């Protein structure tokens, strides 16, 4: 394993990677994936990529081109310093000024947070991935180059274009899961500092991974969804999903669109519509069976709950949040219900809480709560024995650690899964581990980033899944279900299961929560969960 000796290495060793993980040195997974030398190969970064972009470690997330001239180099350094100053201004950063200053000023550099970070741990404690490695660099740059304080007080660091470019790249080696922050005895938050670095890069320098910005929030604001679906296409797709769902369940269903005066505006992550159509289909089946007054919106952005700005840019974040609220206002709904998407939950319910005012301040509710209330109402006839297979539950960080929605999903599982079939992961609830796809990683796969993600960020979750099923046969014919009530987490869990071929080899399948409900509904044909890999 190669790792930096010091935070000062960030501006040293030009053109060289600062860290390298030898996959053979990683901690083996539990059986049946415990043969480290039989794990899938970790694709190497191409030489062409190493030539063209700034190099930090074994992968590239952001694609920052190496500067060709001194002016280009200066632009990187000066842009970063100017953005850093703006983070301390009320005008430009009232949004996070207090939490930011708190974390900049009060870290005692005690390393309590290191044990909590799944990336640092699964990397074999590679210094580069230590939660405060990047925070410390940011702090030193600030105190030395902006505040002009003596390095004897806050520590020393060289500042050059490579320090800046590598630091931005390093801010995309953190899932923003805030597990580290939970253990900090002072209240400092390394995830927040990662996000603030991303903000400097995006909001001041225009540097962002394409998947989050051009193909993410920009596309969403331009055509209506980061999937590229326009309002017309989304309506067509939902119509198709309704037909397909009715065929699978034997119960006709029509998803209502643009119903003025409906009680609920349901906003899905549009990725569900494209990749997991059974999820919106299941929502429609359950909501209709419960007799709810609900609707989807066909207004651009109003049908896609994603809000990638939550990971990198406050303005992009606010733009999307406001458009979600505008769609709800136009329909005059009583509340917005967020579908199975963790970051959409947190973005619109918690963070946008300090953006939406007046007639845009429409109450937001988690679908976990709505679904739990439907179950409690007794309107659905349920037969848990239809879900007679082992089930474990992934807690999406955004929904659980960062919103405190912990019990509704468990109450639902209790009602639809036979006793003894559900097992918790360890740890779970607010102490859970991130799926590894957090902060945008689930949709980022440039170069060999997907491989890096599987080996570094998703490994802890895969370990937990295997441990949760450790008392079950790992024969592929013995089907086991990982319930992930979040679209991004589901995508990441799909990817990691596929990487290890865990469905074919060990019968581990994944899906959402509402699918488990429909699978247990007496009034629909059995077999809604089809155990077909997709």
């Amino acid at each position: 394993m190669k790792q930096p000796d010091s935070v000062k290495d960030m501006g040293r060793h030009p053109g060289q990677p600062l860290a390298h993980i030898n996959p053979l040195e990683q901690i083996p997974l539990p059986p049946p994936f415990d043969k480290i030398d039989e794990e899938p190969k970790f694709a190497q970064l191409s030489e062409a990529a190493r030539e063209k972009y700034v190099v930090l470690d074994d992968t590239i997330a952001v694609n920052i081109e190496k500067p060709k001239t001194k002016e280009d180099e200066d632009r990187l350094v000066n842009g970063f310093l100017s953005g850093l100053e703006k983070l301390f201004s009320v005008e430009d950063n009232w949004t996070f000024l207090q939490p930011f200053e708190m974390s900049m000023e009060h870290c005692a550099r005690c390393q309590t947070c290191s044990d909590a970070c799944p990336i640092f741990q699964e990397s074999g404690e590679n210094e580069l991935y230590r939660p405060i490695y990047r925070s410390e660099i940011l702090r030193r740059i600030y105190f030395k180059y902006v505040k002009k304080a003596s390095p004897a007080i806050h520590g020393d660091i060289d500042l050059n274009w490579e320090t800046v470019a590598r630091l931005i790249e390093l801010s995309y080696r953190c899932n923003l899961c805030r597990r580290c922050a939970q253990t900090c005895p002072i209240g400092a938050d390394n995830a927040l500092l990662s996000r603030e670095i991303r903000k400097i890069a995006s909001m001041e320098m225009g540097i962002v991974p394409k998947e989050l910005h051009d193909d993410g929030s920009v596309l969403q604001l331009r055509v209506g969804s980061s999937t590229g679906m326009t309002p017309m296409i989304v309506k067509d797709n939902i119509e198709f999903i309704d037909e397909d769902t009715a065929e699978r369940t034997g119960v006709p269903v029509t998803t209502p669109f643009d119903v003025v005066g409906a009680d609920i505006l349901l906003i899905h992550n549009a990725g569900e519509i494209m990749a997991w159509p059974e999820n919106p289909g299941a929502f429609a089946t359950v909501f209709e069976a419960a007799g709810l007054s609900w609707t989807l919106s066909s207004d651009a952005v109003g049908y896609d709950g994603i809000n990638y700005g939550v990971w990198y840019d406050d303005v992009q974040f606010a733009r999307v949040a406001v458009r979600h609220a505008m769609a709800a206002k136009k329909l005059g709904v009583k509340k917005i219900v967020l579908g199975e998407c963790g970051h959409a939950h947190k973005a619109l319910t918690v963070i946008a809480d300090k953006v939406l005012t007046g007639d845009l301040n429409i109450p937001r509710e988690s679908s976990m709560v709505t679904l739990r209330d439907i179950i409690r109402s007794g309107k659905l006839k349920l037969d848990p024995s239809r879900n007679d297979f082992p089930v474990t539950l992934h807690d999406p960080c955004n929904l659980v650690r960062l919103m405190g929605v912990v019990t509704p999903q468990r109450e639902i599982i209790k009602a639809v899964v036979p006793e003894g079939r559900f097992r918790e992961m360890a740890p779970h609830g607010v102490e859970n581990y991130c799926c590894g796809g957090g902060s945008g990683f689930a949709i980022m796969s440039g170069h060999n980033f997907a491989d890096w993600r599987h080996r570094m960020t998703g490994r802890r979750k895969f370990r937990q899944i295997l441990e949760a099923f450790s008392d079950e046969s790992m024969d592929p014919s013995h089907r086991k279900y990982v319930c992930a009530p979040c679209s991004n987490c589901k995508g990441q869990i799909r990817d990691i299961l596929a990487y290890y071929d865990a469905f074919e080899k060990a019968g581990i399948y994944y899906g959402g929560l509402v699918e488990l409900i429909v699978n247990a509904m007496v009034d629909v044909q059995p077999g809604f969960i089809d155990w077909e890999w997709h």
Partner: protein
Amino acid sequence: MTTLAYVVAYVGVVFFVIACVARFVMWSKMPMHMRWELYPVAHEGGGKAAYGGSYLEDTEWWTKKREVSLIGELKVMVPEILFLVALREHNRKLWTRSFPFHFGLYLVGGATALLLLGGVVAGFLPEAISQPAERLIGLLAPALGGAGLILGIVGAIGLLLRRRSRALRDYTAPADLFNLLFFVVAFGVAAATWLLYDRDFSMVGAFVANLVTFNLAAVGDGTAGLMLVLSVVLLALLVAYIPTTHMSHFIGKYFAYHSIRWKDDPNLPGGEQEKVIEELLSRPVSWSAPHIGADGKKSWLDVTLEDQSK
């Protein structure tokens, strides 16, 4: 010489108070920020705090009265302040050094408070009350103060050594070492004075009583008196120095919990928060990336509402 000690003590204490108040005011005046809470939130009622749940689990939460439990907060805060529970849970190795250090400070602080009380009692109350009180203080203050000094020194040395470990070394600036050394030296001199010349705290008690009554008379003779002066000067300088460093985290931590981690009060329609938010959204933005479209004049609201569909 003794006059110098009195002057430094007054200045040190006044500076400490002013600096702490200034930091408190700075943190409390910061603008409202986006919610960034982290569960468990200790004041969540209805048993939710125990597993990290929130009011967002409730049906139509915005129609319900929130259950906010002050007792719940105290149940977390008091053990955290006294025993550094988070550190004990997540970093036992460091806790074995940090706990004695912090607890030592509390004991020294407690002993000082007792001596101040003794000074007030002796100076301003009738003997019938002041004599028994002084006797009690005379017993308690040396016990607490002595134990506090020893614990503080042991903890500070432990922390100093710990900073040499592989994981901490690179993250340690010279100032971090200086801070801990300052504690070792100031507490060390005070402990030596206590052990060699002032076992019953009579000298330091008299000094503090004089401080309270603004009587700048000399206390102690010869080396004993000199050691007392040196102790007072070093401790007063330390007290003044603390709030100027990141050791002021005892103030910041309050806000880290109450204004960030546990700050979950929602912006309800028509509520007070809406006005504050609207004012903040009217502030000008100057971020330079082209997609922001800022010019230093347009507000957050302007750039948020600009048509992005082209």
